[in-house]
């Protein structure tokens, strides 16, 4: 199940937020833009960008986040972590992670660290379970 599918199926009952965080594989960091990593990305059909340098200002990060939002076409509103990476650190989010927060503000689902622990289908199952438990409270 893709994130787009997840959003399409549940957006009327769940608030979705993309939180854009520090780059996982910028050109000037752990770059995947050559050799075997590049070939593997291409084979997987990933839409990950290979031309992004690590943003040094919030304006730069917001600009890249905007590009990402357009490229991914999830339909989910994107919010951008500040340059202190506070939200990234609070949720140990990098490179990618999924959470579900319940009506009471408590964590209902905490996904594994991506990419290998990133499973939208698990989040879907957690949403289904939570909706079933909460009944009319989540209409």
């Amino acid at each position: 199940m893709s994130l787009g599918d997840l959003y399409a199926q549940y957006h009327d009952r769940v608030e979705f937020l993309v939180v854009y965080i520090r780059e996982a594989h910028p050109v000037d960091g752990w770059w995947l833009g050559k050799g075997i990593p590049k070939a593997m990305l291409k084979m997987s059909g990933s839409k990950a960008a290979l031309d992004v340098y690590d943003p040094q200002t919030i304006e730069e990060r917001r600009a890249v986040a905007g590009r990402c939002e357009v490229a991914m076409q999830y339909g989910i509103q994107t919010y951008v972590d500040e340059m202190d990476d506070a939200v990234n650190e609070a949720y140990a989010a990098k490179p990618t992670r999924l959470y579900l927060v319940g009506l009471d503000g408590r964590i209902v689902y905490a996904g594994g660290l991506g990419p290998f622990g990133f499973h939208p289908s698990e989040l879907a199952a957690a949403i289904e379970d939570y909706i079933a438990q909460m009944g009319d409270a989540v209409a």
Partner: protein
Amino acid sequence: MFGDIQIRKKEKSWQERFDALAPKVGDVAPDFKLHDVNGQNPIRLSNLCGHKPVALVFGSFT
């Protein structure tokens, strides 16, 4: 190649350090206030809670 190995070690160290502190099921979700890609429309997580459950998708373009 040596540079890549160093970067990977640093990333792994970061993940181990922060993953141990990451919120678990049942924990109160850390609150935050962020702006959109245009630096506008601030949103606070705690203001969203209570209306619908909130799915948080963390990631980057790379």
